[in-house]
């Protein structure tokens, strides 16, 4: 459990994190979302004791980070995959980390195998691809088998295979009962990974909600309907009070009528449905809606 209370960080005039109060619970993947520059990384750095909060507190299992006796056994973090010495072998990078927290060498081999770097353990990360560095960073985070994990933009710059690997791993870690906080500025990725969302903009909390609730609360529900007799069905649905968009062909976009009702109308008139899919306006749109005012540098529409 990560607990933030009125967490604030100011750099002179700029408030990077503004009065943030949230709990990050165990057993689920919590997505930490916000546009670039919204204070996600600063928040994570304060949780890890790297940056000193201007005011407020961040605690892990009830204690501030600096109070943890063997922090790597309590919290695993991936902040920047590039933050390895390019000339220090992958194994040695994990070795000094392990030694600092009295973690045995066997665990190094374990995490290297877990992230699929067993064969390149003796190589220098200077020659690693971003994906390999990301895996090394994950290995470092998992070194102490910690109950709490913080991953800052772990899928940034990864190929689809790497993205899927991280997604599966992160969900697995949460399923084991760990507290997992994953930051991203990509809503689409969070939609596939997270169970819970913390959305920030300009350092302020915008939403702290379950993924499903977030999607539902934000969007008028629409239903995609396909039927051979689309035109006839459209008229019937309009008569039943729905507004119907015809996209051409046999597809209809119906709003204002739940899917169960649409099915009933179709059945009553003997129309066979080919598809009946409730649609939430994309998560992406909901997110953009929410953070529109909080984007630091917006492009001018041309």
């Amino acid at each position, binding site marked *: 459990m990560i607990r933030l209370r009125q967490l604030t960080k100011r750099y002179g005039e700029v408030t990077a994190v503004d009065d943030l109060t949230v709990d990050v619970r165990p057993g689920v993947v919590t997505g930490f979302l916000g546009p670039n520059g919204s204070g996600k990384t600063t928040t994570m*750095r304060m949780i*890890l*004791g*790297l*940056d*000193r909060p201007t005011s407020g507190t961040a605690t892990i299992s009830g204690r501030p*980070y*600096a109070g*943890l*006796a*063997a*922090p*790597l056994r309590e919290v695993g*973090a991936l*902040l*920047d995959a*590039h*933050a*390895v*010495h*390019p*000339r*220090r*072998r992958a194994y*040695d*990078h994990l*070795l*000094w*980390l392990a*030694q*600092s*927290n*009295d973690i045995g060498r066997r665990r190094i081999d374990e995490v290297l195998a877990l992230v699929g770097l067993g064969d390149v353990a003796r190589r220098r990360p200077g020659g690693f691809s971003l994906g390999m560095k990301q895996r090394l960073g994950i290995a*470092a985070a998992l070194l102490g088998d910690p109950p709490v994990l913080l991953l800052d933009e772990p899928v940034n710059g990864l190929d689809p295979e790497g993205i899927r690997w991280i997604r599966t791993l992160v969900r697995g870690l949460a399923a084991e009962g760990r507290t997992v906080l994953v930051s991203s500025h990509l809503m689409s990725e969070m939609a596939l990974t997270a169970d819970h969302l913390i959305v920030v903009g300009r350092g302020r909390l915008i939403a702290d909600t379950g993924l499903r609730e977030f999607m539902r609360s934000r969007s008028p529900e629409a239903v995609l309907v396909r039927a051979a007799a689309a035109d006839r069905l459209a008229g019937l649905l309009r008569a039943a009070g729905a507004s119907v968009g015809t996209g051409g062909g046999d597809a209809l976009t119906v709003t204002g009528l739940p899917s169960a009702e649409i099915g009933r109308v179709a059945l009553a008139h003997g129309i066979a449905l080919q598809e009946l899919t409730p649609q939430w306006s994309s998560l992406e749109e909901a997110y953009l809606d929410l953070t529109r005012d909080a984007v630091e540098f917006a492009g001018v529409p041309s």
Partner: protein
Amino acid sequence: MTALGLLRSERTKFRTLRATVRLLAGALLVAGTYGFLFGTAAARDYKAASAAAKAAFDPAGAAFRAMLLAGVLVSAVGVLAVTAEYATGTIRAGVTAVPRRAFLVAAKAAVVALVLLPAGPLLALTSFVASQTALAARGVPSLALGDPGVAGAVAGSALFAALLGLYGVALGFLLRRSAGAICLATFLLLLPGMAALLPPGAARWVVTWWPSAAGAQVFAVHPGAGALGPLAGTGVLAATVLALLLAAVAVFRRRDA
């Protein structure tokens, strides 16, 4: 987090940096080469000197002069042990693993000192042998290892090297950048060499009390009048280094990593 684990961790970091090992090899080369050159120059001066000057000639003068130059590289070892972490970003992982930052500085300082303690006498011996060989080869009076004061100077070089390494560690933490810290460390170390440019009073003060000059007193086989002597000189250097290290800890603890 145990003291032993911390020391092991810092030792691993140090051992797996090639730059530091290369710097030490470079320091050995400098000690040998410049030891020989200082010996050769002293021999040339001796040949050209008057009889009175010849009688006053002290072969110890050239014996350890190369140590201050080698010391530049020795201090750079300390600097790089710190700034390599800032340059690569591993300092953040280091602070995350060891949030008690004073312990982190202490462990790093201890490892650098432990590596440099034996390196000092090795460098001093190299400088001594090279310079005295150069003197002897030209038939100029030279010292042997068994002569009074020589063994003490060689032994004292252990502390000299360790203190210069710690000096580098402190500047590394204070400045965080390799180039800046190494430049400043070098300039401050070699400043007494430019004392001749200063007014006489200031020059006398610098060659006596400036920490690098005072520390080099450990190599004064025959201390001159008015000099601090090996013990007091090393004390001045040690006090300065301690003050810098404490400043480094204070700054490092306050600063966002």
